[in-house]
C-alpha cells in the first residue's frame, strides 16, 4: 500500500541529519557551566528598558567569568523576549527551563509576566529574580518556596513613598485613582495604608477599567470630593487620557504619579503646559556607591548611554553579581544552597563589598560580606523584597527635574 518514494527518503534522511546536528539539546547540562535565563521585555511596553536589562546581565556575567567564575563554574547567558505579555513570557520561560535547562531566570519586568512565570520556576525549582511591583509576588502561592527575589520596590513601598511626599509637600486632602490590576491597586492601597497610618484621611478613591475611551465620570467623582492632590497607580496610556480630561475640566489640583507613567513620553503626549508641576516618583539607583560606578561604566560601554537612563538595568546587573556571590559562598550550584546564601552575601552584618572580585576575595578569606548593589543597598527581607530609595521629580517646563530623595 505504501511505497517510499525517493523524495520521501531524502526528506527523512535530511530530518535525521538535522536532529543529529543538535547535540546541545540533549546535553544541556554540561559540567562547569551555570546557565542563566535572561527573560526581559525586549519588545512591548517594556521595550524602553528590556535591551539594556539584557546587556547588563551579559556584562555582569562577563565580569564574573573574568574573575574566575563563581564556586568553580562559569556563567552562560541564554536570552528570551517576554514581549511584555504574560502568554509570550510563559512560552519563553518554558523554553528556557525545558530546552536550555537554565538554573536561574533573571529580569522579568512587568508584574503580569512575573506572576505568570513564577509557577513555572517554582515547579522547576529554579530562582526567579524580577523587577516587578505587585504585592502578590511576596507571599504564597507566588512565593511559596521563597525562590522569588525582587530587586524593585513593591507597589506597597511606592505607596509609602507617595505618603512621605504628601507629608513633605503639605498636602491635606489626597484622593487616589488606580488602574484595575495588581500593580495599580497595590500603589493606591499602599498609599492609603501609609497615609491613614499617620492618622490622616483619603478623601476619595476610584479603581478604573483599562481601555476606556474616557475617564471623565471617574475623574468627576474624585474632583467632587475636592482633593488637593490626586495620587495614582496608573500607566502611560490611561494617564495621557486622564491628564487631558483633567486639564479640560479646568479644576486645579496637584498630581503624584509613579515614574513609569510620569515620564518624558507623557510630557510629549499631552504637552508641557498640561503637566506643569506634576510630581513623578520613582525608585532611584544607589548612585553614590562604588558598585553603581562599575555598573554605569559597563552600561555606557554596552549601550552608549548613561546608566541612569535605565534603573532596571542596574537591578539586573545586581541580580547576576548577587547570584554569583551566593554561589561562591555556598560552594554549590543547587537551587536550595544558592537560595539560602543570597541573604548571607547581600544583607548585614558583614563587610560592605561593591564588586564581585572584592566579594569573592573576602569570601575566600573567610569573611562575612554585605553586597551593596548598584540599584539599592540590596537587603532582602523575609519575603525576598528590597527597599530602595525614591527620587521625587517635578515636571517643570516639560523637563522632569529630580528635587529630593525620600527614604522609607
Amino acid at each position, binding site marked *: 500500500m505504501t511505497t517510499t518514494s525517493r523524495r520521501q527518503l531524502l526528506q527523512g534522511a535530511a530530518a535525521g541529519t538535522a536532529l543529529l546536528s543538535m547535540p546541545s539539546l540533549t546535553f544541556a547540562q554540561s559540567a562547569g557551566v551555570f546557565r542563566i535565563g535572561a527573560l526581559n521585555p525586549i*519588545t*512591548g*511596553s517594556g*521595550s524602553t528598558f528590556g535591551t539594556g536589562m539584557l546587556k547588563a546581565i551579559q556584562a555582569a556575567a562577563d565580569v564574573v567569568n573574568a574573575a574566575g567564575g563563581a564556586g568553580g563554574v562559569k556563567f552562560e547567558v541564554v536570552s528570551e523576549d517576554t514581549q511584555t505579555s504574560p502568554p509570550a513570557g510563559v512560552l519563553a520561560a518554558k523554553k528556557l527551563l525545558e530546552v536550555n535547562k537554565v538554573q536561574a531566570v533573571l529580569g522579568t519586568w512587568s508584574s503580569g509576566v512575573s506572576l505568570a512565570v513564577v509557577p513555572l520556576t517554582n515547579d522547576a525549582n529554579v530562582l526567579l529574580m524580577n523587577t516587578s511591583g505587585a504585592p502578590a509576588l511576596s507571599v504564597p502561592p507566588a512565593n511559596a518556596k521563597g525562590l522569588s527575589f525582587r530587586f524593585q520596590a513593591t507597589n506597597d513601598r511606592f505607596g509609602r513613598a507617595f505618603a512621605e511626599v504628601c507629608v513633605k509637600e503639605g498636602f491635606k486632602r489626597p484622593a487616589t485613582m488606580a488602574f*484595575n490590576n495588581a500593580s495599580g491597586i497595590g500603589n493606591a492601597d499602599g498609599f492609603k495604608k501609609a497615609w491613614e497610618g499617620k492618622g490622616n484621611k483619603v478623601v476619595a478613591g*476610584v*479603581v*478604573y*477599567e*483599562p*481601555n*476606556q*475611551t*474616557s475617564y*471623565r*465620570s*471617574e475623574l*468627576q*467623582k474624585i474632583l467632587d470630593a475636592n482633593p488637593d492632590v490626586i495620587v495614582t497607580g496608573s500607566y*502611560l*496610556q490611561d494617564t*495621557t*487620557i486622564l491628564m*487631558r480630561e483633567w*486639564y*479640560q*475640566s*479646568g479644576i486645579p489640583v496637584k498630581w503624584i504619579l509613579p515614574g513609569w507613567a510620569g515620564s518624558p*513620553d507623557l510630557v510629549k*503626549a*499631552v*504637552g508641557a503646559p*498640561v503637566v506643569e508641576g506634576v510630581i513623578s516618583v520613582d525608585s532611584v539607583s544607589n548612585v553614590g556607591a562604588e558598585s553603581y560606578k562599575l555598573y554605569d561604566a559597563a552600561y555606557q560601554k554596552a549601550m552608549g548611554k548613561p546608566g541612569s537612563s535605565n534603573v532596571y538595568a542596574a537591578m539586573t546587573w545586581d541580580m547576576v553579581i548577587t547570584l554569583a556571590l551566593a554561589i561562591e559562598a555556598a560552594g554549590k550550584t543547587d537551587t536550595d544552597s544558592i537560595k539560602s546564601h543570597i541573604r548571607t552575601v547581600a544583607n548585614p552584618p558583614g563587610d560592605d563589598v561593591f564588586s564581585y572580585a572584592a566579594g569573592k576575595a573576602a569570601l575566600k578569606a573567610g569573611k562575612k560580606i554585605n553586597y551593596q548593589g548598584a540599584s539599592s543597598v540590596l537587603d532582602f527581607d523575609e519575603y525576598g523584597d528590597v527597599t530602595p530609595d525614591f527620587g521625587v521629580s517635578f515636571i517643570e517646563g516639560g523637563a522632569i527635574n529630580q528635587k529630593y530623595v525620600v527614604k522609607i
Partner: protein
Amino acid sequence: MINFPQLIANGLVQGLFIAMAALAITLAFSIARFPNAATGDVMTAGAYTGLATQSATGSLILAGIVAILTGAVISLAADRLVFRKLAGRAVVASLVASIGVAFVIRAVLGVTFGLSQLVYDIPLTRAKLYWGVRLTPLDLQVAGAVALALALVFGILHLTPIGRQMRAVADDRDLARVSGVKPERVMVALWLISGGVAGLAGMMLGIKTVVEPELGWSMLLPAFTAAILGGIGSPGGAVAAGLLLGVVQEISTPFVGFNYKLVIAFAALLGVLLWRPSGLFGKREGVR
C-alpha cells in the same frame, strides 16, 4: 449629589464611538452575512493614517478623508483577497478568517508605526458649561462629525439607487438577484461604506484617546454588543444601541462603581435579548 445630566452626556459621548463601530459591523453583516472581526483593526488603520496625514499637512479634514479612504480600501482588499473566496461556506470560516485579517493589519501597523503610543496634535481646550453639563468643544465636534457621517450613510442607503439595491440584497438576496440587482456592485459599495465608516470611527477614537496598535481591537466587544442589541443587520438599531450602551454604563456607576459598569452593559444586553430575541430593532425593521 449625583449629577445625572453630566453622566448622561458622558455616556452619549462614549456611546458615539461604540455606535460608529457597531454601524460598520452591522452593515457588513447585513450583506456579507458574517461578523467581521477585522472591523476593529480597520479602525486602527484609519487612526494611524489620519494621524500621519494630520502631522504632515496639519489639516484634520484631509486626515478624515484619508482615514475614510484607508478603511474603504483595506476592507475592499480584504474582501477581494479573503472573504470572497469563503463566500458560501459556514459563517464561522469567514469569522475566523476575519480574525486572521485583523492580525495581519495590526502587525503591518506595528511594524510601520511602532508599538509606542502616538497622539493627535490638537490644542486642548477647557470645557464649557451648557445647562449645568460640562462639555468640551472637541466633544461637540466629534458628535457633529459622527452625525454627519450617519446622515451620509443613511442618505446613501435610502436615497440612492445603489442604496436601494443594497437594502434589497440585505432583505432577500435571491429575490434581489432575479429582479436584476448585480450582487458584485452591491458588495463593492458595501465594503467601501463599511470600511469608510470604520476608518473615520478609528480616527475619531484616536483623537479622543491615544493611537496604539490595540486601539480598535479593544473596541470590538462593545461594538459587537451594540450590533447585536440593535438587531443585527439594522443600521439605525446599531447606532441607537451604541448610544444606549454608553449611557447605561455611565448612569450605573453611582450604584455599582466603575469596575462593574461593563457588567451592567451586558446585563442590559441579556435583558433585551430575553425580551426581544431579535434585538431592539429586530429583523422586520432591518435594512430594507
